[in-house]
């Protein structure tokens, strides 16, 4: 258990401290909260793990419980105040007879969750709403944030819309069957990384640098060591001096080995300086504050252009002099842009920029590491790439792969943020040194200052076209701020010069890209992965060029968009492994144009101060990364005739465990619920590169398809040999001629005969298909206040066949919500010393229910010949056209181009207001 062990002195209770019991979900507990403890941690120490932490500040609502029937944020409730009162958590929501509460039933019916980290709190709020409050859901759900769903599925649940499909044998693919964990999710039984109690657990906390660039001269630890309960302190002198990259990819060479676990130079404010492990989090934190660090402050540089200049402070000085702070640069040209611009009737050139944003997966980073009785080390962690994390840990600690076990429980959102190994290493170090289990859970503040972000990019675009709109030249110059470390820098830079440029046919294209080290928090993988940044620039520029020529934005795009049969190319002559497995961009554009024209959504607000405009943007995304990517899947028929499926890939709310089961079920003509799935576990599942770059379906799903087909062939092959008749599968049986043999029986017969009902397959990503998305926006902007209201949102997605329509819609809606946040409300603000000023959800504003309008989502009718069962990637691509569509609508409304994200009221005000 992670409460104060008995050997820690308990402060004496004061005379008037309550000694009465605590009723939690109808059970009476007699326990004394630690002084200062909030109800949230008190409940979790009692094993009530349905109560989650998203912020500990009252902003997110993940910790919502009822106190005598009234919802409160348990993180803001001193535990002792619950004495003598009734606390109800998600675990106590259902009636004792085993049925579900109506709200649980509604959330299940609408599958109103993805990672479901918000779900318990969301349901506790919803279940206590009065009818009047239900009339105003935006207001009622103000205090509950969800990063995954875009709130539409939650609204559906509250309106009693149940859309889950029946699980019919052989028909799982294409049906909205529920997640295999749906019941565990709505009852609060689903377990996440930190939802476990272990004997003897130590808690790890790190001290982070207040300086953006400094050399550590000395770290005095005596005062910190003296804090009662402190077990060990680690500084740069105590860690293996091995360089690595925290970024995870199959190919380790695509990221620079520029990081040490702990270093004697800190290169951004928020970087780890030292780690303390102690009996309690409080003791570890107290000790961190007592560490005496002597810093030698070094000059810092935050702007990548300044960092490229000669004489700029060097961030990694072991690198060659001539490259300076430029970590990666890419150049290419096809045709001749000089000729292209010379033959153009109109040229648009402008510099656009996109802002740094954080993933804000509701579950923060965290790991638990321990040495098992089997002599191996086990790491339970919140990651998108457990197998690569394992490789990195073996590398850092010199461990044999067979001695390391890395696994995930449920992962509370990732979005690319967990394509990074940033908590496992220190936990393992401490577990190895102390011999005890060690856990480390990031605070929300650490998530902002010490995890990765989307790369801030500045893009100069120059486009030329003939009078009829035909593009004659595209030129792009991208500067990406990778921050202090270069993980994902070259890959995101590559992606920035990929899809958004290939989407348009043009004989002359030129690109130059630079990823530059600065003393900012490092960039990382983030949904859209570099392509979102330049899609913003190019899609805005296409509109500007269309405006110069007096051409409609839809017509401009149709004139120039890539068509099936075109050679897919960006700005270099290398052939790629990308091809059209299917093509639905035309359908998406038609839909969006039609839906905007038809009207719908909200009317323009009254008053002449409100200006209205519409905008469109498109995006093309390669289904999967250009780097190597592979996945394995393994199936077994079990003695009872059901199946076991093991997949290496992580489920983080993207729905892969649901769709993988569906793929297997449909190939085995079975019901999805006959397949038990385990995933993301280096002991129990075959190797998988990781769930990122939209590979959950096209690579891992492909492996599942292959394994399921092999499983089917194995069963039918044996059945045929056994019965001598032609056989086919039918749910839990094989039908051979006129005979129906149950799979349990067949298993028994086959096993006796020495047959192995097992199959294992690996899939490798190549060829890659392409997915398309088109976003349409109608909005109103208030000229005097700069306020933007999205009135109508429509989206066309070409993601191939829908394995699970409801889930696909959820991925699109979640992406759109994230795109809206990026465009309008989210902003990481820094002071002159490079310290973030708003590392909290109170003022780093991810969209709440009220901020996300419903979107009409349309799916192109395509069937991909490359992806498994016709499906394509879907997890990322929908975000790319959102911000530019909003910016284009804003330009349409105001006649003014706002080239920099986010589109904040004060920026709009500064350009529009009369007295500005």
């Amino acid at each position, binding site marked *: 258990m992670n409460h104060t062990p008995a050997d820690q002195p308990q402060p004496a209770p004061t005379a008037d401290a309550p000694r009465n019991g605590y009723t939690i979900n109808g059970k009476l507990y007699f326990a004394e909260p630690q002084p200062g403890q909030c109800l949230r*941690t008190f409940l979790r120490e009692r094993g009530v793990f349905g109560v989650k932490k998203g912020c500990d500040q009252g902003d997110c609502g993940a910790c919502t419980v009822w106190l005598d029937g009234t919802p409160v944020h348990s993180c803001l409730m001193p535990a002792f105040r619950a004495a003598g009162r009734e606390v109800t958590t998600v675990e106590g929501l259902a009636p004792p007879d085993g049925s579900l509460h109506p709200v649980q039933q509604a959330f299940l019916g609408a599958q109103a969750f993805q990672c479901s980290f918000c779900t318990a709190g969301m349901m506790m709020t919803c279940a206590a709403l009065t009818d009047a409050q239900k009339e105003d859901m935006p207001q009622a759900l103000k*205090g509950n944030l969800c990063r995954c769903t875009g709130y539409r599925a939650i609204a559906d649940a509250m309106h009693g819309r149940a859309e889950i499909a029946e699980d019919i044998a052989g028909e799982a693919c294409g049906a909205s069957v529920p997640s295999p964990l749906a019941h565990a999710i709505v009852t609060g039984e689903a377990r996440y990384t930190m939802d476990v109690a272990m004997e003897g657990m130590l808690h790890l906390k790190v001290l982070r640098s207040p300086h953006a660039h400094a050399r550590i001269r000395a770290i005095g630890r005596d005062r910190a060591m003296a804090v009662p309960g402190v077990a060990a302190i680690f500084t740069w002198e105590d860690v293996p001096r091995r360089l690595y990259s925290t970024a995870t990819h199959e190919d380790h060479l695509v990221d620079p080995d520029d990081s040490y676990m702990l270093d004697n130079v800190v290169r951004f404010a928020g970087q780890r300086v030292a780690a303390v492990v102690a009996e309690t989090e409080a003791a570890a934190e107290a000790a961190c504050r007592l560490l005496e660090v002597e810093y030698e402050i070094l000059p810092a540089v935050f702007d990548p252009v300044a960092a490229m200049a000669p004489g700029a402070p060097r961030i990694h000085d072991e690198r060659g002099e001539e490259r300076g702070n430029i970590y990666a640069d890419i150049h290419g040209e096809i045709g001749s842009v000089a000729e292209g611009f010379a033959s153009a009737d109109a040229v648009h050139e402008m510099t656009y920029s996109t802002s740094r944003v954080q993933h804000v997966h509701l579950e923060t980073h965290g790991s638990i590491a321990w040495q098992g009785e089997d002599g191996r080390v086990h790491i339970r962690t919140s990651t998108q790439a457990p197998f690569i994390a394992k490789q990195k840990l073996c590398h850092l600690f010199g461990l044999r792969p067979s001695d390391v076990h890395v696994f995930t429980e449920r992962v509370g959102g990732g979005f690319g943020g967990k394509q990074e190994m940033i908590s496992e290493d220190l936990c393992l170090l401490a577990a190895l040194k102390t011999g005890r289990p060690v856990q480390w859970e990031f605070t929300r503040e650490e998530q902002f200052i010490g995890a990765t972000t989307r790369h801030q990019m500045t893009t100069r675009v120059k486009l030329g076209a003939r009078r009829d709109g035909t593009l004659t030249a595209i030129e792009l110059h991208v500067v990406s701020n990778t921050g202090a470390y270069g993980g994902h820098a070259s890959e995101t830079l590559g992606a920035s010069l990929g899809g958004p440029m290939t989407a348009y046919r043009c004989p002359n294209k030129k690109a130059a890209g630079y990823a530059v080290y600065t003393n900012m928090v490092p960039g990382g993988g983030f949904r859209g992965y570099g392509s979102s940044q330049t899609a913003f620039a190019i899609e805005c520029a296409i509109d500007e060029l269309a405006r110069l020529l007096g051409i409609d934005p839809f017509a401009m795009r149709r004139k120039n968009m890539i068509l099936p049969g075109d050679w897919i190319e960006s700005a270099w002559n290398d052939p790629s492994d990308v091809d059209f497995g299917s093509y639905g961009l035309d359908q998406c554009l038609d839909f969006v144009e039609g839906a905007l024209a038809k009207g719908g959504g909200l009317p323009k607000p009254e008053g002449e101060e409100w200006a209205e405009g519409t905008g469109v943007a498109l995006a093309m995304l390669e289904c999967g990364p250009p780097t190597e990517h592979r996945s394995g899947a393994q199936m077994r028929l079990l003695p009872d005739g059901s199946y076991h499926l093991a997949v290496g890939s992580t489920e983080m709310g993207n729905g892969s465990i649901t769709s993988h089961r569906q793929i297997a079920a449909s190939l085995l003509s079975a019901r999805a619920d006959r397949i038990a799935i385990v995933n993301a576990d280096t002991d129990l599942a075959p190797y998988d590169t990781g769930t990122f770059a939209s590979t959950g379906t096209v690579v891992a799903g492909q492996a599942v398809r292959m394994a399921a087909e092999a499983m089917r062939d194995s069963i039918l092959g044996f059945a045929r040999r056994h019965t001598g008749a032609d056989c086919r599968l039918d749910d839990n049986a094989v039908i051979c001629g006129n005979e129906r043999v149950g799979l349990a029986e067949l298993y028994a017969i086959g096993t006796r005969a020495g047959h192995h009902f097992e199959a294992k397959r690996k899939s490798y990503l190549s060829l890659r298909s392409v997915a398309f998305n088109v976003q349409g926006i109608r909005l109103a902007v208030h000229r005097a206040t700069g306020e933007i209201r999205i009135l109508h949102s429509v989206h066309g997605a070409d993601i191939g066949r829908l394995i699970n329509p409801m889930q696909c819609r959820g991925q699109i809606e979640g992406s759109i919500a994230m795109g809206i946040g990026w465009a309008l409300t989210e902003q990481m603000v820094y002071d002159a010393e490079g310290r973030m000023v708003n590392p909290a959800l109170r003022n780093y504003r991810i969209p709440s229910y009220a901020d996300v309008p419903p979107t009409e989502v349309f799916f192109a009718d395509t069937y991909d010949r490359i992806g498994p069962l016709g499906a394509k990637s879907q997890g990322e691509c929908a975000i790319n056209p959102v911000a530019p569509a909003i910016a284009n609508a804003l330009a349409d409304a105001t006649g003014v181009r706002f080239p920099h994200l986010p589109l904040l009221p004060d920026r709009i*005000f500064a350009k529009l207001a009369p007295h*500005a």
Partner: protein
Amino acid sequence: MKAAAFNYARAASVDEAVQMLVRGGGGAKLLAGGQSLLPALNLRLMSLDLLVDITGIAALRGIRVEGGTLKIGAMTRHADLLTSPEIAAHAPLLAKAIAHVAHPAIRNRGTIGGNLAHADPASELPACMLALGATLVIQGPSGQRRVQAADFFLGLYQTALAPDEILIAIELPALASGERAFFHEYARRMGDYAIVGLAAQGKPAGDRIDALRLVYFGVGERAGSCPAAARILQQRHSPAILAEAQAALAADLQPQNDHQASAAMRLHLARTLLARCVNELLGRAEASA
């Protein structure tokens, strides 16, 4: 992230609570709803030795009307204010404002006394106190004293309360006949603290507004009254008068530059709000600002 260790004590009466504060010296702090205190403690932004819990003191809760005065106990929760018929009838400004304070789960715990003692410049409630001409009743080791709202809020998170004093009640003059309230705020995202907000109350008389109190929040280090603009609006309404009043705001307000908005934008929004307020109080259709 758990709060640092400290002890707590439940006070049964205001006297006892005051004694505890006196004994605790600077290391003791009152705990009301905890909705501002706990976030700070969770972040370990403050350290203290003793929390004095005053939620058990029944005398500090409740809303009463006595004569022409509305008396609100300091421990009355936001949620109670929101649903109180007395507040709706006699202090509609407060009823409008409270709907903008945080979200339901916070309103279920947070108290008006805690909010005012916290004195967040972006909060809606201190501005309402100024606009309503509230009197704050305070108890300390040497007995009770009464402080006008205008003398209570001193600056950023600073009030006239001494460390051993307790805000026990708020007294508001009940809405007089003919008086009307205006409340509006601009926020980045629904439910956020305001970039600029305006709480106002006055007595429309024909096309003039008498006894007008204009108080902005989110502008400057504390809620800001604008007597100069209010005086101008006592004249007969005309576009010129409105413009004059809008111009006068520059003298009354000290808007700050921050990552939410520039000072210029804040002043501009304040002027926009003033036009809305005047139009609403005079019952006119919204004209352009």
